[in-house]
């Protein structure tokens, strides 16, 4: 019950995550992020969470495991479009303070440019 699509828009790589990211499906999110992390051309990652219905610790753990990697490789990641209940799961452990989470794609793109300038 997960579908992950990666698109390229200019210099931005967009991962669209649809469905539920739980202990059985988080591996697919992990694979998609690994692929981007290993691509030297990738500098900006936008995670489209508008169709993300559910996330458990397995999904949070995947995002957390790339924080240091992305930092050292100078890759910026912005998550956007989370529903209130999915955002709430990030907030329970304060992970919304460790990652950049914004409300929509426009704001996400602005955030990437702001970080770069």
């Amino acid at each position, binding site marked *: 019950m997960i579908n992950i699509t990666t698109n390229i828009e200019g210099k931005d790589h967009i991962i669209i995550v649809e469905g539920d990211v739980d202990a059985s499906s988080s591996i697919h999110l992990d694979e998609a992020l690994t692929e981007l992390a290993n691509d030297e051309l990738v500098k900006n990652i936008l995670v489209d969470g508008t169709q993300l219905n559910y996330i458990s610790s397995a999904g949070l753990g995947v995002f957390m*495991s790339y924080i240091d990697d992305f930092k050292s490789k100078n890759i910026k990641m912005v998550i956007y479009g989370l529903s209130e209940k999915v955002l709430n799961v990030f907030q329970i452990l*304060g992970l919304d303070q460790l990652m950049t989470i914004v409300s929509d794609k426009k704001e996400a793109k602005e955030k990437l440019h702001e970080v770069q300038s």
Partner: protein
Amino acid sequence: MKFNLKVYCEKTRLRDIRVFITEKLKAYVHDDLEINQMVLAVDEICANLIIHSNYCNANETINLEVSVEKDGITFEISDEGEKFDISNYKEPSIQEVVQTKKKGGIGLMLVRRIMDKVEFINKEQKNTCILHKRFNHTQKE
């Protein structure tokens, strides 16, 4: 009111568990955020039991009982797999989890933040995890 669900120890069953709890809780709890938090807590415990206590062995089962009481909701999740000893569990810091990149270890952290009571009982071959959440003002009359 009590509800019961028995599932085989396969990770793909986690979704069935979430659907079951969401359906049952809708009649008693208004707040979708609160329902999702309880669903998440039970999902985390069941994922741990399926993966770590029963090694995803589909011949094994876990049993979930949901009891809706006056003051709140109690979830009893039992299995006969390897027991989990909470006295040996030391909660990592978020920084440790980020640095070790091990993609795990925060499930129980979430459960403890969400639930008002988290208990693990081992009796003979049976292990039971009891989670209790007190109702707040969002309870349906």
